């Protein structure tokens, strides 16, 4: 059952990710990305991260991606026009990427802890209480600094969005 769920949602994630780079229209790409995020949220649930799954949906899918859609619609972005250029680039990039992913996967398989397996329900340390406790004790300083980061981001966005620039 675990494996089936994993394969289903991993498949959805990979398909959506491929769709993300194949679609020419940014809206389609954005919605594919939402699909990836949703699938990943389910995988997080399988990994015992209930809170992080919910946050993935609320923050990523519900806020960040809406922002993307927003901007795409605001700018009325159109589908990319095809050009003659990509042919050469693809000849270089595709093998490069294949090397990259194969190297990465082989390294992972070579070094992954032997026998480490994921069974649903074996780890329940990702509940809201646990995350909250870690966030407000061990990681209090980073957490507070994060708030400053967000403040700066808001200010930056406001400054950039002014008419004069």
């Amino acid at each position, binding site marked *: 059952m675990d494996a089936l769920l994993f394969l289903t949602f991993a498949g959805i994630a990979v398909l959506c990710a491929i769709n993300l780079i194949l679609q020419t229209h940014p809206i389609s790409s954005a919605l594919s990305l939402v699909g990836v995020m949703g699938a990943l949220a389910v995988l997080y649930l399988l990994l015992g991260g209930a809170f992080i799954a919910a946050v993935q949906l609320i923050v990523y899918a519900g806020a960040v991606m809406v922002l993307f859609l927003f901007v795409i619609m605001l700018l009325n972005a159109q589908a990319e026009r095809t050009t003659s250029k990509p042919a050469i680039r*693809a000849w270089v990039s595709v093998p490069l990427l294949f090397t990259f992913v194969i190297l990465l996967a082989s390294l992972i398989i070579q070094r992954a802890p032997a026998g480490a397996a994921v069974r649903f329900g074996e780890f329940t340390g990702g509940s809201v209480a646990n995350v909250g406790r870690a966030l407000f004790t061990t990681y209090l300083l980073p957490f507070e600094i994060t708030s400053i980061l967000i403040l700066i981001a808001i200010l930056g966005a406001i400054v950039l969005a002014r008419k004069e620039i």
Partner: protein
Amino acid sequence: MPAEITQLLPAAVPLSWYLVLSAILFTLGVAGFLFRRNIITVFMSIELMLNAVNLTFVAFSYHLKQVDGHIFSFFVMVVAAAEATVGLAIILTVFKNRATLEIDEVSSMKL
């Protein structure tokens, strides 16, 4: 569930599957970065890479039975949100000034 499938699949998912999935998603993100020309799509590819990395964090959190990985992916999300805010604002500004979203047309620092 048919017995054949149950026997075909392992009872538990090896950790490396998650990690390889993460690697694949990351590579797809890189591919999106390299192949797409729309700035927004490129930006979304970056988000995809961040998501892939988050998956590793959560997977290792499971493996180590510690919550820290979740915290890290939480921070990644926060940073991604901040990045999206500023990045999209920059894209808006770029579009306002150059009337294009083609990344290759934004190759010089000045207008």
